[in-house]
């Protein structure tokens, strides 16, 4: 009869014996690996020595040739082959996805993606209008207007980009150019459109890119490129910008100041500017707007970015002059306005994150919501200018089901308060909800489906609702 204690001892001994054998095997494997590494290192040294010797011989030959004031003589195919080997090879660039231009320090990269969108719209924004291809709040038909149950296919969001990077004593020189095909609103017309074209040296950037007012990392991950109702408009414009990083309380931060291209969009009483005829369809984007070519000052921007490990938060401010000149009478009006935008992206659990934007301003409505939703200011029949107060917000949560599947839920709201004399068919309030499910089986491909519910309310209380289901396929390179 074997006692339990004795049996346990035996088990432990057996276990330790097995462990000892495994350790011995591992030791032997380590020894074999070490001797193999040693052998490979010797071979590597040998190869390097040969390369150095070959290089010296080449330099020596060239020197002799120069001394003799005669071109070097290459004999046979072997010499030609050696010559080919001397040519600089294309090497990996200094940033991801780039290669170096031979003989220079400049790294260049090309990339982009193809994206096809299929949109089932509960109501159409009208023939060849952008509102059928992306969310354009001001184009949501009101009342009974608009074709019901419309479908649109397009690949206009497909993009091409080029970038370069050159280290320099003044700071890195970067350039970036990006195009898509939204140049023409007609659904089946593919005109290239310049999205970004800028360069930067060190902290100084000049060219067309995202407005400083927008924290682009806070934009929700929607299939719809138009964006959420309450987000700051995805506006790209020409600008000059200085960015200065610094650390405060162990937190990486950055301040930015910029001068940006001004452009105002005003509502003008038709009595003041008689050439402005009423839109043929007042339920659609009202034709009461003018974009005066009277800007005197650039839009002034300032922004503070906090970049802690858990995400980023930015506070941006814009100051701008809204100016109007009547082409016929020479009548002029100007008013200074501005706004602030608090935005950020905060990591929550795993890869999940929350994105938000909150903004308020007077005279900055062109930065609010999707493009051309509200006017910056209104002019009454006597020409008195009054800035429009606009405000809104957006909240989006991104959840990763796993590394391949993710979903986003986004809600946005924006409103503009017009003076009482403004036409009652102007858009006063917009809201949108986006919910999607996106699948990326590999990092270069994405398939997704998204549901959008968006409402547009006019000053007179009438409203329009758009429901949309969008399928997208995106392939990057």
């Amino acid at each position, binding site marked *: 009869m074997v006692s339990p204690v004795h049996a346990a001892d035996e088990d432990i001994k057996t*276990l330790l014996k097995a462990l000892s054998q495994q350790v011995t095997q*591992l030791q032997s494997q380590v020894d074999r690996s070490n001797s193999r590494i040693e052998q490979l290192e010797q071979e590597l040294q040998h190869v390097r020595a040969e390369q150095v010797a070959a290089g010296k011989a080449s330099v020596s030959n060239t020197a002799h040739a120069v001394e003799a004031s005669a071109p070097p003589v290459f004999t046979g195919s072997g010499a030609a082959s050696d010559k080919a080997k001397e040519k600089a090879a294309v090497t990996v660039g200094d940033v*991801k996805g780039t290669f170096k231009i031979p003989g220079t320090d400049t790294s260049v990269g090309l990339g982009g993606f193809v994206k096809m969108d299929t949109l089932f719209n509960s109501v159409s924004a009208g023939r060849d209008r952008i509102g059928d291809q992306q969310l354009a709040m001001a184009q949501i038909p009101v009342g009974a207007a608009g074709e019901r149950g419309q479908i649109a296919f397009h690949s206009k969001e497909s993009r091409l980009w080029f970038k370069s990077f050159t280290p320099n004593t003044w700071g890195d020189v970067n350039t970036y150019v990006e195009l898509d095909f939204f140049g023409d609103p007609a659904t089946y017309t593919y005109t290239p459109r310049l999205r970004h074209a800028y360069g930067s040296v060190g902290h100084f950037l000049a060219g067309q890119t995202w407005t400083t007012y927008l924290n682009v990392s806070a934009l929700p991950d929607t299939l719809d490129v138009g964006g959420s109702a309450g987000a700051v408009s995805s506006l790209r414009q020409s600008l000059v910008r200085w960015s200065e990083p610094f650390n405060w309380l162990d937190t990486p931060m950055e301040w930015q100041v910029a001068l940006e291209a001004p452009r105002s969009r005003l509502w003008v009483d038709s009595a003041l500017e008689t050439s402005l005829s009423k839109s043929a369809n007042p339920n659609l984007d009202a034709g009461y707007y003018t974009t005066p070519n009277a800007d005197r000052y650039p839009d002034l921007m300032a922004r503070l970015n906090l970049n802690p490990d858990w995400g980023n938060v930015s506070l941006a401010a814009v100051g701008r002059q809204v100016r109007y000149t009547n082409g016929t009478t020479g009548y002029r009006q100007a008013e200074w306005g501005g706004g602030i935008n608090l935005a950020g992206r905060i990591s929550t659990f795993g890869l999940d994150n929350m994105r938000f934007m909150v903004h308020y301003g007077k005279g900055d409505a062109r930065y609010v919501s999707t493009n051309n939703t509200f006017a910056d200011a209104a002019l009454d029949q006597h020409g008195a200018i009054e800035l429009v107060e606009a405000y809104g917000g957006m909240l989006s949560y991104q959840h990763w089901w796993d590394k391949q599947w993710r979903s986003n839920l986004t809600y946005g709201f924006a409103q503009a308060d017009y003076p009482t004399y403004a036409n009652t068919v102007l858009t006063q309030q917009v809201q949108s909800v986006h919910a999607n499910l996106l699948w990326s089986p590999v990092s270069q491909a994405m398939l997704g489906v998204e549901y959008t519910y968006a409402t547009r309310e006019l000053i007179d209380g009438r409203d329009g609702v758009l429901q949309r289901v969008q399928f997208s396929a995106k392939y990057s390179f």
Partner: protein
Amino acid sequence: MKTLYLSALVSILSACSQNNQYAHLEGGRSQTGQPALHAVRDNRLHELMDRMDSLMQERFMTEQQLDVERRKYSRQIGEAARDLAANVETMIAQLPRLQLNAVEQTTFLALAGKLREEMRQLQQLAEQNHIDAIPDSLHEINTTCTSCHALFRKLGG
């Protein structure tokens, strides 16, 4: 008694959370009931790598903004690797308390040294912004973890 020591060793070395960044840290719990420090940091490494990979899905940032984000994550990966390498020293410092025999000590030290060296390499890659090489480096680290688990985790169970 020796089994206890081996269990302690398993607790210290266990769970470099090889499969999933949100890994279950049970296998990596120390005797205090908390996840082993190196398991937590390795988990952080994988999470940062996944964050960097997720940048491929960004459509709105320009490529240069993405490069800035990649550099940020790369810096954080470098810091995590540095901390993990320092943690290996702590593990080695505990070796005398474990009362292992000569062969076991050799194995322990070999694996710890390998892990430390791989962490240093990873830190170097991250600091030099060699982003494309980081996944391979993480894979090597996982192999080291798996080797360790194959030797010791079974006994701890």
